[in-house]
């Protein structure tokens, strides 16, 4: 295994270590969203998916 993979793995392990406590904190303190809230999140997300699909089709020609 080359050192690039080892370096990348070390970076990602570091990220996991840093993200874990923040995730636990966020899980405990995040307010619950209503179905209306989630809908307002899904609309722009679907637009992003559609836009990325459009870009892929554009690059494929």
């Amino acid at each position, binding site marked *: 295994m080359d050192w690039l993979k080892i370096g990348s793995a070390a970076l990602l392990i570091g990220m996991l270590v840093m*993200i874990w406590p923040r995730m636990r904190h966020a899980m405990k303190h995040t307010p619950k969203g209503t179905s209306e809230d989630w809908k307002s999140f899904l609309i722009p997300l679907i637009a992003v998916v559609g836009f990325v699909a459009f870009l892929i089709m554009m690059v494929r020609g």
Partner: protein
Amino acid sequence: MLGNQSVASRPIESVLSTNKVIRSTYQLLSMTLLFSAFAAYLSIAMQASQGMGLVATIVGIVMLWFVLPRTANSAAGIPVIFAITGLLGFGVGPMVAYYLSVNPSIVMTALGGTGVIFLGLSGYALTTRKDFSFMGGFLMVGLLVIVGAALLNIFMGIPALSLTISAAVIMIMSGFILYETSSIIHGGETNYIMATASLFLSILNIFTSLLHLLGALGGDD
């Protein structure tokens, strides 16, 4: 009467303060993006290796975790955020150089696409003024799953998983743009340096993931 004036002026002060954070964040964000693009250009001009790119990225991330939180409330935070964004831009250089050599139009498309996604999502959060704070837990879990999957794929090397991760990164980072912008609007984030760092990371991750997706699915990877 004076008491009434005080109560009435509080929301106005709050709105002015929020607008100031938004304006400062976007000003700093545009400057750091330009600086990062310059650093990426330097990296390409110097023909920096992937190893150099990785070292620059690691140093940038370590500064982001340990130096920025300690300096973000002082003037020292400005040079630190520029150093971080410069290092991350330099780190992306070898990847951009590769795609420029394969198909330069992919890089331009990814750049333009990232700009449209960021402006569209920020515009959505700013105009609707919806509170996306409920997404915090979901986004952090998504980020953790993505990093775990990316770690696994370093050893497994499955191309389909790599593409799935890139697609998921675009989704999660889009969510982070909504979350961070909404957090600034609703007073959850009052530090424009930290807000800039968060938005910069989302933009950079969307750009690199879009580049990867377009490179692979465009038939030139």
